[in-house]
């Protein structure tokens, strides 16, 4: 008999609705699988055994009634403060806006998804709960900052997870772990009880195993329907430099092949002032990161502390200039979206590096993976647009590769149309790839 967590999230919801399995049986099977599988990857270090049982009796009969998910440590829950990957209660316990929307759809929150401490990192190496590992190879990074969300979904521990994305934090770990990760348009969900409320970059995100599951969870999170349409015949803007040129050859090839498979019309595109976007992102990010309390600062890893301290030294003169560039890039993007439906380039420039030495070798040289990861991801955060990472194959070492699609503001439904079209065009051979841990 198929384990309930080997079903898609849609199938889980249907099975419960039709009485093929009870919400309690679903939960028990999920908690058992978590205990069996999570030792190697540390995706869900905090588990709500009894509280999740209690949630079932209170859950409304929504479209996701009884479906277990995890929630990143950036969101306050009624019974737990948000800790942002630290040991400190940083946002008091409350029903955060994102949690309320998912709760109203009937989900059961079984635990806290691990994350890179304070959300400042794309590797998942540093967390108060310990590093999170990749289900495809536990010696490699799961990614970050939402590494626990992506690893748990890839390992078939849960069918979906509430993540967040301030500089690729949903899309990058999804690429590393071979799952679908969508960053929502900025401000599309209530931000109360969410760390993203303190920045102009962060947006909630959803991690799921395929486009259909991502659509179901995203619709619940947005509290609006996301009607499915054909994803064929779309026009895709390809920005070669640096997003396609400075990536590992296997990543380039897999993403190129996937685009060809989808049959979309590819248009080479230049985005005006794009060369300044990274600096604008950095200028704003440093200003907004701020400095946490002395207690928290002394508790985090040396690299994270150094990032925060470097911010303390940085002149505020860059902020108004960063905003001028930000406004200009937004106009350039809006203009680009007059001629294409979305933009496409590799989500991450390389597959997941080792936990021990999270560096990657690219055509431009050997660098810490955070630097090119943020370069590939941050345009969406700078401008507020949504984006999604889709699995498009494996490299020679059997690590997943992700293709990123970025669409105009509010285009979540269209992006998911594209994801599902890609799945059909590839006979689901990428999205059905299963990590060794889940076989």
């Amino acid at each position, binding site marked *: 008999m198929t384990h309930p967590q080997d079903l898609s999230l849609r199938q889980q919801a249907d099975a419960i609705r039709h009485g093929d399995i009870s919400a309690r049986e679903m939960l028990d099977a999920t908690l058992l699988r978590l205990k069996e599988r999570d030792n190697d990857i540390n995706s869900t270090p905090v588990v709500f055994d009894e509280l999740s049982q209690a949630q079932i009796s209170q859950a409304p009969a929504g479209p996701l009634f009884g479906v277990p998910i995890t929630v990143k440590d950036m969101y306050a829950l009624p019974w737990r403060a948000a800790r942002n990957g630290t040991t400190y209660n940083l946002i008091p316990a409350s029903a955060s806006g994102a949690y309320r929307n998912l709760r109203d759809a009937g989900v059961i929150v079984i635990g806290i998804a691990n994350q890179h401490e304070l959300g400042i990192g794309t590797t998942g190496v540093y967390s108060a709960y310990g590093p999170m590992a990749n289900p495809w190879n536990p010696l490699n990074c799961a990614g970050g900052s939402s590494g626990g969300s992506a690893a748990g979904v890839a390992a078939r521990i849960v069918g979906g997870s509430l993540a967040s994305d301030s500089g690729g934090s949903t899309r990058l770990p999804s690429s590393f772990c071979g799952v679908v990760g969508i960053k929502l348009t900025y401000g599309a969900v209530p931000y109360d009880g969410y760390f993203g409320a303190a920045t102009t970059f962060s947006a909630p995100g959803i991690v799921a195993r395929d486009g259909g599951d991502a659509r179901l969870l995203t619709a619940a999170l947005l509290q609006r329907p996301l009607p499915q349409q054909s994803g064929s015949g779309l026009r895709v803007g390809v920005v070669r430099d640096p997003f396609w040129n400075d990536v590992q050859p296997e990543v380039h090839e897999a993403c190129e092949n996937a685009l060809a498979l989808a049959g979309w019309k590819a248009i080479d595109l230049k985005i005006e002032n794009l060369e300044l976007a990274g600096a604008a992102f950095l200028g704003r990010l440093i200003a907004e990161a701020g400095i946490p309390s002395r207690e928290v600062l002394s508790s985090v890893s040396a*690299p994270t502390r150094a990032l925060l301290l470097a911010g*303390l030294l*940085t002149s505020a003169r*860059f902020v108004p200039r960063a905003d001028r560039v930000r406004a*200009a890039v937004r106009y350039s993007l809006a203009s680009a979206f007059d001629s294409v439906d979305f933009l496409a380039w590799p989500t991450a420039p390389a597959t997941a590096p080792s936990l021990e030495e999270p560096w990657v070798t690219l055509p431009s040289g050997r660098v810490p993976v955070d630097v090119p990861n943020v370069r590939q991801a941050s345009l969406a955060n700078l401008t*507020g647009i949504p984006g999604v990472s889709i699995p498009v194959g494996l490299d020679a070492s059997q690590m997943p590769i992700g293709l990123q699609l970025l669409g105009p503001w509010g285009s979540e439904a269209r992006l998911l149309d594209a994801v599902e079209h890609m799945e059909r065009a590839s006979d689901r051979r990428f999205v059905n790839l299963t990590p060794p841990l889940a076989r």
Partner: protein
Amino acid sequence: MSNFEEWASATFRHEEIDFDATDLALVELIYGGALHQLEMLDRIDLDAFPARGIDLRHAPKAS
């Protein structure tokens, strides 16, 4: 002590932040890299980049 170390140390002490030599070395590396990128913003022509309102939830209104 280099000029950077003196400046950074004084700033951190003023902020009552504990730090050590490892912190200073890492901060210098990160700060140097960030500054190199941020200085691109010093060179923009302000007339070509007017200050405009930004509503991240929506596409910018046509100007």
